[in-house]
């Protein structure tokens, strides 16, 4: 399962971190994304994918969405999830419904 999307430490992007670890096979990921017409830069230890917002996909499964808009991050995450068969993100806690946990 992925932890709820949250702003990274410098508040410049949203990140999704798998718990427990969910390593990605970047070769397979690249091939799936390119088949969908998504431009991918392969930096060996990570991929940079040009989706609705640019996404960094790390070997350890961490995803970073270069946007400060939570809706865009969420949509992009869901698209990646369906393309790559990734686990779901945890539901937001009831008390903070409608807000992103930090």
């Amino acid at each position: 399962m992925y932890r709820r999307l949250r702003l990274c430490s410098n508040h410049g992007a949203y990140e999704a971190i798998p718990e427990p670890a969910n390593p990605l096979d970047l070769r397979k990921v690249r091939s799936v994304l390119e088949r969908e017409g998504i431009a991918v830069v392969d930096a060996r230890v990570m991929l940079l994918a040009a989706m609705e917002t640019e996404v960094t996909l790390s070997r350890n499964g961490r995803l970073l969405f270069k946007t400060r808009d939570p809706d865009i991050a969420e949509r992009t995450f869901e698209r990646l999830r369906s393309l790559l068969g990734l686990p779901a993100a945890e539901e937001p806690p009831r008390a903070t419904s409608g807000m992103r946990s930090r």
Partner: protein
Amino acid sequence: MARGVMLMSGGIDSPVAIHYLLRQGQEIVAVHMDNRPFTDDSPLSKVMDHLDLLRERHQQPIPLYLVPHGPTQITLMRNTDRHVGCVLCRRFMWRSAEKIAEREGATFLATGEALGQVASQTLSNMRSATVSVKLPIVRPLIGFDKQEIEAVAKEIGTYEISTRPGLCCQAVPDKPATRSNLVQILREEERIDVDQMIDDCVRKAVIL
């Protein structure tokens, strides 16, 4: 007074270092290594705002070279040991800055580095990074601690710009080397065409 080339990242330290150099009457040419796609637009925007503020405060022109560094990072990530990625990256930055210094007739390089603040700022890493250049390197903040630098940044008005939201460098390895070995660094660089890469990125630099 002398003319120097200053590496600017958009962080808290480099505008403070420039402030001290300008206050002394040195002429400064700024260089920003553009790390996109491993970061976002925020570092460049911060550097431009820092320079506007410093130009106004010191009434001096400060040309800015924007040097593409993302392609270099990709080559480093594909071909070299990630563990020493930060040191290799710094060596490219220094050599690019030195090339620009030659073009600008500058006689020194400068940086906002202070000891021990981040992984790449240990003495052994600084040595490994800087033996790649011949020009003297000026570090006006080397003995400052974080609080002292922040206090000056607040006083001159650059702190608020530096601390705006932004994306950290995504190319930083999970466990960067803190004690680098120059022999290993040179061996890693044998895997890539260093001179060609530096020529390419400096040729593609734009002056803003």
